[in-house]
């Protein structure tokens, strides 16, 4: 059995000579309906000429990961993919911001996160402007009313109705990708876990899967399964936190109180396994925290008690008229818009787009124990709420099933992990995809012949999904923004890096 969630290519198999070829190949794959997993660039520093290395990763018709890779020399621009394939819009903006390579004809070529030379110039953002006598704009943030990460939202409204929402991010930019290149590749886990701290397990698993693939060192199936257990617990915790927020945002206090303490039960159980409520330390290169028989029984007991009470409070939410009145028909993202924009994860599935890396690109644990993935049809706040409830139910059932296995605790406790000096395959590209709570966390690591890791690309699912939130607000009332925002519950730091 081999993992379909991680793949390594020798770069000489991928290399395309000219940027034209690269762009044409991207167009062909996109026209054929391949899913664009990621598209990114880096400046080529070893070359004296102005060079940019671009990499695209697709999921092809057979569901396999495929990559394209090209070093451009002298090219300063290329015809943008976005006008024909809007799903590429944020990736092309990022390539432009990080490398200077211009996608000609991109309809909104604006900074993604104000990195590099643009740091600190947040006031310079070129907002859209809507013209008209009774048009007004409302700016919110970067600091918001609650305890929440910063981001700026600009609403262009006619009366109460939002014509367009523009989202400006980058406030959380810490330079994670630069930092990762400065350190020993085997010791990046604590930085990776702090990149998007609410998805620490998803991030750590993706990092370890990629680095282990490059080191040619797999972990035992039981160890891999324990990683999936951590990931599903993280999914439950984050989804329940979102449900808590949704209930609180509509002043449905009983929901808020109950989801709050249900999440506590899960994250405290995570802490009993990994030492940390966010699962930090659960996964390290070559090893995974052991789950003893006592912990296995503890998790089963915690999840069983959780499932019973979660079901009660869900019934209350789903049958309450006030909840229906607030969420149904609000913040709709159509299936068409979700497909066009390349939405991923929960937000995509709530709009009827059946895309889930646990099913489409399963690692070994999900091949051994397949997990069901559901979708909703309506694409509104209600659908995103219901999707989360269903995903929690699915994860609980999956966990209770795998935790029955006594072998889980028997094997793998003697893992020593990958040595700090382990050699990595040179001149290679490793890509890992882990379906985290919000959607696929994609990590791509490129190594060179002489220098070890030359590029570490992280792509949080939020990068693709923020524009979905903007679409959800169109023609809605500005007062619906909090519930729309919470129903997506995207990551700022994961976007800003």
């Amino acid at each position, binding site marked *: 059995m081999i993992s379909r969630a991680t793949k390594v290519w020798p770069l000489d198999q991928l290399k395309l000579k000219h940027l034209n070829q690269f762009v044409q190949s991207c167009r062909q794959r996109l026209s054929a309906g391949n899913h664009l997993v990621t598209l990114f660039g880096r400046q080529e520093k070893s070359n004296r000429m102005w060079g940019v290395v671009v990499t695209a990763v697709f999921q092809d018709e057979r569901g396999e990961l495929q990559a394209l890779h090209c070093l451009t020399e002298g090219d300063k621009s290329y015809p943008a993919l976005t006008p024909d394939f809007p799903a590429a819009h944020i990736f092309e903006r990022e390539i432009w911001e990080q490398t200077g390579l211009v996608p000609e004809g991109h309809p909104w070529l604006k900074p993604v996160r104000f990195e590099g030379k643009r740091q600190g110039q947040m006031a310079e953002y070129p907002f859209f402007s809507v013209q008209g006598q009774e048009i007004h704009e409302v700016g919110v943030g970067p*600091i918001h009313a609650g305890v929440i990460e910063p981001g700026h939202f600009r609403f262009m409204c006619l009366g109460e109705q939002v014509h367009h929402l523009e989202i400006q991010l980058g406030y959380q930019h810490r330079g994670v990708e630069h930092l990762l290149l400065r350190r020993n590749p085997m010791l990046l886990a604590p930085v990776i876990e702090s990149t998007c701290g609410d998805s620490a397990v998803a991030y750590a698993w993706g990092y370890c899967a990629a680095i282990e693939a490059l080191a040619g060192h797999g972990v035992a199936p039981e160890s891999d399964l324990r990683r999936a257990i951590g990931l599903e617990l993280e999914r439950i915790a984050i989804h329940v936190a979102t449900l808590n927020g949704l209930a609180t945002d509509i002043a449905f206090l009983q929901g808020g109180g109950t989801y709050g303490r249900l999440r506590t039960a899960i994250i405290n159980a995570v802490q009993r396994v990994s030492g940390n409520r966010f699962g930090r330390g659960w996964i390290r290169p070559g090893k995974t925290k052991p789950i003893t028989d006592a912990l296995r029984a503890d998790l089963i007991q915690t999840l069983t008690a959780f499932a019973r009470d979660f079901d009660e409070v869900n019934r209350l939410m789903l049958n309450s008229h006030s909840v229906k009145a607030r969420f149904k028909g609000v913040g709709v993202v159509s299936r068409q818009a979700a497909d066009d924009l390349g939405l991923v994860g929960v937000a995509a599935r709530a709009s009827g787009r059946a895309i889930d890396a646990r099913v489409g690109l399963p690692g070994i644990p999900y091949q051994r124990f397949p997990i069901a993935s559901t979708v909703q049809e309506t694409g509104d706040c209600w659908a995103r709420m219901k999707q989360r409830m269903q995903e929690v139910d699915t994860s609980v059932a999956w966990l209770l099933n795998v935790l029955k296995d006594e072998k889980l605790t028997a094997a793998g406790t003697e893992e020593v992990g990958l040595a700090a000096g382990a050699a990595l395959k040179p001149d290679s590209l490793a890509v890992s995809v882990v379906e985290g709570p919000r959607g696929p966390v994609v990590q791509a690591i490129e190594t060179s012949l002489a220098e070890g890791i030359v590029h570490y690309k992280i792509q949080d699912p939020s990068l693709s999904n923020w524009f979905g939130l903007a679409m959800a607000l169109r023609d809605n009332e500005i007062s619906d923004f909090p519930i729309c925002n919470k129903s997506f519950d995207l990551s700022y730091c994961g976007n800003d890096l």
Partner: protein
Amino acid sequence: MIKSLRVRKSQGSQYIPVLREAVPAGFRAKPVIAPADCLPACTACQAVCPSGAIALPAMQIDLGRCVLCGDCEPVCPAGKISFSNDFRLASTQRNGLFVSAEHPDIDPIAVSEALHKRYGRSMKLRSVSAGGCNGCEMEINAMSNVNFDFGRYGIDMVASPRHADGLVLSGPISRNMVSALHSCWQAIPDPKIVIAVGACAISGGVFAECDEIDRTFIESFKPSLYVPGCPAHPLSIIAGIMDLLGIAD
């Protein structure tokens, strides 16, 4: 109505009666340094530490930098390092955050009479995340959930800085947040305090060496309370604030 009563029954009573005495099972919290000698010239723990928190040869761990990852524990050939679940990690002094074999505990917080008098019954705080990873932010939110319920002591997070008595800072302070952070700080009326929550806010944490952060704010406005952790545990933050303000259990 019946559904609501059923949920109410399932909820029961969830609050932790005495927060200072809570036991966070499994929490990898305070580093405990055994008196055993290090192997000669060994720097294994330093080599794996992601935030430069360990000083040698007389081993000392700076909880202002430590992210409690525990990666040093298995690599120490002398078995000097372990972690306890003691969440009482906060200090009023930056240099009170160091632990060693000789000095195993964080310096106890001295109750400030002035702060007790002014804020002992009501403390309103404005949170700003400046490059935080949503770990500390979620834990700050958790302080007001039904388990911790720190509102019972008159401590609340407020929306407007105008209503706040202090700023709770999380994150290493990204350059892109410098201006907004200053605006928020200026909007809080005097007198006001800063509470630094988490390793990032205290020292930059794992991001300390990044060019993309700017630590000027924290150097200019000295925090009244430092709460270590990555993220800081709600119990560490609450116990720290209660100690600082002299609030009884």
